[in-house]
Each structure stands twice: as C-alpha cells, then as structure tokens.
C-alpha cells in the first residue's frame, strides 16, 4: 500500500488523462472508418462486378483509396494507445493487464488479419481476378468488426470488472472468459460497432451531400450519397435500441454514472427525465423535466426509485456532472435527429422513389457526418468521465493507475503538437484526394481503370 500511496502523491493523472483522452478521441474517428469503410467499398465493388456499371466500380476504387489512407493513419494512431497503456497507466496494467489481456491478444490477431488483407486488397486490385479480389476484401471487414468487439470488451471490463479472485490483496485467480464477457460487454460492444458503421455511413454521405449542394447532381454523386446514407439511416433504429440497452445496464451496474448522466442529485422515487440544464451546488438547474420519465426508462416502472449522486460518498462521485449530463443528452438528441433524417428519406422514397429535393435535406446530410462523430465522442465522454474517479469501477482509482515517473506532462504536449499537425494534414490530403483526379459527369471504363487505388 505504501507504493500506491507514493504513486498517488507524485503522479500526474490530469496530464495522463488528457493525453490518453486526446489520443483515444482522435484515433477512434479513424478506427470507425477502418471498421465501416471496408463494408462500403466491398458493396460498391460487388455491385460493380455484378452490373459492370462504371459508376459503382469508380466509387469502389475511390473509396478504397481513402480507406488506404485512413487505415494507415488509424493503424499508427492506434499503436500509440498500446504504448500509452504502459507509459501512462503502468499501475493499471501491471496489476490488471493479465485480466483484460485475452481480448487484446485476440484483437491483435484480428488486426493482423485486417492489415494483411488490406495490403492484398489495395495493392492486388490489378493483380487478382475480380472474384478473388472481392473475396480478399471480406476478411478486412470481418476482422475490423471483430477488432472493435475485442477492444471494447476490455473497456467494458473497466466498467463492470469480473472474472478475478483477490486474496490478501494478491491476484490469485483469473477467469479470462468471465472477464471478457462481463456485464457491460454486450451493450457496449453492440453500441460501439453500430456507432462505427454509422460514422462511416453518415460521414461518407455528407461528403457527397456537400458536393450536391455545390451543384453536382450526377449519378456518381447520387449513389455516393445514397448508399452510405441508407446504410447509416437503417442502423439508427437498432442503435437507439442498443443505446437503451446500454443505459439500462448502466442503471443496474453503475448507478452513480446514471445519476451523473441525468444530473440526479438525490435518490428519487418516480424520478423525472431531465433534459438539458446546468448542475451546480448539488442541483440541476434549468432542465426540462418529464415527470417519472427516468424511472420509466430505466426500470419500466413510473414509481421505481432511482439512486441519486447523494448515495455515493463525495470522493467517489464524478467531478464534472454537467459535462456528463449534457454529453449524454446531446448524444441522444443527435441520435434522434439522425433517425428523423432517415425517416425523411424513407418517406420520400416510398412516395416518389427519390430522395427529397429540398436543399434543406442536403444540408442535413452534409451536417450529419460531423454530427455522428460528435455523438460518438460524446458517448465516450459520458462513459469515461461518468466512471471517474475510478479507472476500474470500484476497484482501482485513476490516481493509483498512473505512471509515477516525473515529467509525463511533457509527453502530453508532444502528443498535442503531433496530433494538431496530423489533423490538419489528414484533412488537407483527403481534400486533395477528392480533387486531384476530378470525377467525370459520366464515368467510363477508362476512367475506372486509370484510377490508381494505391
């Protein structure tokens, strides 16, 4: 215990948390496209092979080129996370590394499969027969989803630790499968995989939405918008169900986090659902309240009692309740906004077999990409900040997990500088990719074949 006390005294958890938060928040956007984009590319390639249509074939190639760039940047921005697990969270990893290790080890294999087949797929475009090439792309998509599942398993364990035995402070037994399939695994993994696919869907669609607002209404741009938009919109419905599942899991297993998400200061019977507002002085101000709403949503019973923040000792409560509450509300709000966008499209398609002609629809599509990314990030803020001060819920505090070596705040500033450059350059290069070889109004086979994927 003396070692832990020293650690807590000298460590710099704020710098470490900022560095980890920045690296994760940045990487996860790339990771979402790494999971989702292979699905879009494969769909377009498959349609292209089936129909011979140059528009599908050109979409497949151009999306593949973006995938190559995003995957490369995602692969390396993911590596720093593995290193940071030890460099920043040595206390966490030296104690719990083995308990959460199995999903990471399997994820390592999945990531291998992704990287190997991505190399084959991108660079083998003109070396393999179309069918073999298409087949070589399938493992990328499957392994990407598997990677997301296994990584989120490890995060789920931090929220719902299970599968270990401690005797006299020593870790004596581990059940790796019980640790991996903990109470949070189901809802968290499903919620995140759907989020990754939605970020790709709405994110890609928004690029074409912007192009349409600028006057490109040809078939290439229509399909470029409609394919990913339809995919994203269809997933919005199961995502809302998964979100409800996740929130109910939080209500059962992490009542303090739920209280922070709702800004609920006192344990309440028939608790209202609070939307918006500001938490200070132990109260939520200016919120819109739906009577009994929270009890209904969390317990399916309008009179159910919901635990408030006051049930948890002050030292064990998350410090930034307003941030958690507003992040959660905004995420949910964006989710329903995306649902509305999907319904708008569905209604028009049903009545007129076309997407809404209104510029407001295109504006909404153009914004939906950024909005989806924001919602995904806010979801992570909700779950990570809402778990504070714990790194492993009710087992280890962040302050005891951090590397006690002096100077780690300088690492944070180095990471800030590198990521600032990387953000600017990635956006600039992606813009360059869309413009360097302009899309012809009516793409021909020659336009497809001359477009270099790598």
């Amino acid at each position: 215990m003396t070692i832990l006390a020293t650690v807590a005294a000298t460590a710099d958890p704020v710098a470490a948390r900022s560095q980890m938060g920045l690296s994760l928040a940045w990487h996860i956007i790339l990771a979402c496209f790494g999971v989702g984009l292979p699905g879009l590319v494969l769909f377009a390639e498959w349609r292209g092979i089936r129909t011979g249509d140059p528009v599908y074939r050109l979409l497949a190639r151009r999306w593949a080129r973006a995938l190559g760039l995003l995957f490369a940047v995602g692969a390396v921005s993911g590596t720093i996370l593995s290193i940071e697990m030890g460099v920043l969270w040595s206390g966490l990893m030296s104690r719990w590394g083995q308990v959460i290790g199995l999903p990471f080890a399997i994820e390592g294999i999945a990531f291998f499969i992704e990287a190997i087949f991505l190399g084959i797929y991108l660079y083998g475009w003109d070396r393999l027969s179309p069918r073999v090439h298409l087949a070589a792309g399938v493992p990328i998509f499957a392994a990407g989803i598997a990677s997301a599942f296994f990584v989120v398993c490890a995060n789920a364990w931090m929220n719902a630790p299970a599968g270990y035995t401690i005797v006299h402070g020593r870790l004596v037994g581990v059940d790796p499968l019980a640790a991996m399939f903990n109470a949070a695994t189901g809802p968290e993994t499903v919620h995140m995989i759907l989020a990754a696919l939605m970020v790709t869907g709405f994110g890609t669609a928004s690029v074409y939405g912007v192009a349409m607002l600028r006057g490109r209404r040809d078939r290439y741009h229509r399909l470029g918008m409609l394919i990913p938009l339809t995919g994203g919109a269809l997933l919005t419905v199961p995502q809302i169900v998964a979100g409800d599942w996740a929130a109910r899991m939080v209500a059962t297993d992490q009542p303090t986090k739920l209280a922070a998400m709702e800004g609920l200061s006192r344990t309440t019977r028939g608790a209202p659902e609070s939307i918006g507002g500001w938490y200070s002085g132990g109260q939520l101000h200016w919120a819109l309240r739906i009577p009994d709403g929270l009890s209904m949503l969390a317990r399916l019973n309008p009179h159910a009692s919901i635990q408030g923040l006051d049930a948890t000792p002050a030292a064990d409560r998350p410090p930034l309740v307003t941030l958690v509450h507003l992040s959660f509300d905004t995420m949910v709000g964006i989710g329903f906004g995306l649902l509305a966008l999907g319904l708008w499209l569905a209604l028009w398609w049903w009545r007129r077999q076309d997407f809404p002609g209104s510029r407001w629809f295109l504006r909404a599509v153009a914004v939906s990409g950024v909005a989806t990314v924001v919602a995904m990030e806010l979801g992570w803020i909700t779950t990570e900040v809402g778990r504070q001060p714990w790194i492993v819920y009710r087992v280890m505090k962040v302050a005891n997990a951090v590397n006690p070596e002096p100077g780690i705040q300088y690492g944070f500033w180095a990471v800030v500088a590198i990521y600032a450059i990387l953000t600017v350059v990635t956006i600039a290069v992606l813009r360059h990719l869309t413009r360097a070889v302009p899309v012809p109004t009516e793409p021909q086979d020659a336009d497809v074949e001359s477009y270099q994927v790598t």
Partner: protein
Amino acid sequence: MTLANVLAVIMWVGVTAYALFGGADFGAGFWDLVAGRAEAGAARRTLIEHSIGPVWEANHVWLIFILVVMWTGFPGLFGAVASTLWIPLTVAALGVIGRGSAFAFRKSVTARWQRRAFGAAFAASSVITPFFLGAAAGGVAAGRVPPGVGQGNAVTSWWNPVSVLTGALAVIVCAYLAAVYLTADARRTGDARLVGQFRACALGAGAVAGLIAAVGLAVLHAEAPTLAHGLANRALPLVVVSGVAGLAALIVLFLRRFLIARTAAAVAVGAVVWAWALAEYPYLLAGRLTIAAAAATHSVLLATSISLLAGAVLLIPSLTWLYVIFQREPRRNVAAPERTPAGG
C-alpha cells in the same frame, strides 16, 4: 517447458519477426533519407515505396503483438519497462505515427514540395523510431529497469553507453536488412544500376553493423557483465551462428546471390535476438525478475497461448500469401510499373 516459457517464446518470436520485417521497413526509410536529391534518388525511392507499400502495415502489427503478449503474459514486466522507459517509448510511438502517416501521405500528394516534406518526415522518423526502441531494449539488457512501477531512472535507463550502442545498432541493422532485401527486389526491376546501388549499401551497412556489434560486446563486458557472461557461455553457439551467417551474407552479396543473402542476413540478425534471450534466461529483467515470477496466472497463460496458436493457423497462410503475391510479377499490367508521381 512451462506455460510461462511457452508464452515467453511466443513473445520472442514476435520480437524476432518485428526485427526482421518491421526492421527492414524502417531501414527502407533510412535509405530513402540518404537517397540524395529528388532526381538522383527517384528510382531508389520508387523501389522503396513499391517494396514496403503492401506489407508495412502487416509488419507493423508485430509491435502491437509484442506489447499485448507482454502485458497479458508478463504484466509486471510491462509495467516496469513502460513506466521507467516512458521517454524512449513515447518518442518511438510518435516516430511510428510520423513514419506511417507520412508514408501514406506522400503517396497521396503530387506537388513536389509536399512529397519532399512528407518524404523527409517519413525518412527521419524511420531512423528515430528504431534508435529509441533499440535504446529501450538496451536499457532492459543493461539491467537498468528495476521491477515495479516507475522505480527506475527515467533518463539514465535509456541514455547510457549500452543503450546508445543498441540504439545505433538497431538503426544500422534495420538499414542492413532493408538493403539486402531491396537488392533482390531491385533485380526484379531489371535496373542494373539500382541493383549495384543497393548492393553497395548492403555491403557497407553489413560491415558497419558487424563493427558496432563487436564494439558492443566490449561495452557489454564493462557495463552489463551478466549479459556478457551469458553471451560468452550459454549463448555462445548463437553468437557464433550470427557471426558466421553475417560473414556469409557479405560473401554471397559480393557474389550477387541475393536470395541466399536474404536468408543469411535474417539468420544473422535473428540469432542475435535469440542469443540475448538465451543469455538472460531465466530472467526477463537482468538478475531481478524471472519469467516464472513475472508470469500471469495459469488460466491466463493457457487461454492466451491457445488463442495465439489458433490465430497462427489463420495468420501464417495469410502472411505467406501477402509476401508471395507481391514477389510475383503483376498478372495484368493495368497499373504500369513506371508511375508518374501523380499515380503514387
């Protein structure tokens, strides 16, 4: 063999693979750095880009594999190494980001100044990363990482004679491997000048690597006597194998038998990696933390070993396909091999 030893061997296979494959990709960046001005170095840079383009991401995963196996199988080792050596590991991580993204960016842009800027970032980080990873390894080898979280000196653990030497050795060994591999790739392009250039690079780098390794043995004798003792006794056969293979590689390179040279060079480097492990065995942290003491619980070792061995059944054929496919000539010549910068 205990289960802990099995996982230690798996981890060391990862270290070897990362050195031989990932190392060569860093080495390619080294030659990109010294390829000279844009026009003069264009052919060499194009070959480098073609050779590492399809494979570097897969090769890079070995690093993640090593880290994950370490924290799962030997969590105390991971905590000790990562906390004490946080400076070189953070720099190496930033180097990894710079290398990978700059390489991907360079292929995607056309303006000459942009290609130059990304090329410089790619090449510089290809030197920085192996240096700091090598220095970190040297710190472990020299016994400067004590067990426990953050118990070592954050600076002298990697800034000491052994670390500087292993860092430099890592850079030159990467360059050597890359030059040997690239010589064989250059032959397939049929460009005799390119072959000659990389052959000269390989011979030069091989000689320098041998020299640094020899000096290194003397430094180890003074700075890390236990490791030196292990290398001179139990691990001596592997040290001899490395020396013989290294010399053989230089001879067959000279004789222009480039494919044999690849194997010999890989054996020479791989033998050093295993000699280090054998010299330290059964310790992970010299004289202080054994494999058995650092190992995770039995159930974790078992589950991880089974998962990784099952994974190997998927990985080995996939990796083989990846390497074989790009050693063959293209089936259809839609993508002309001589690309304009815009095609990259």
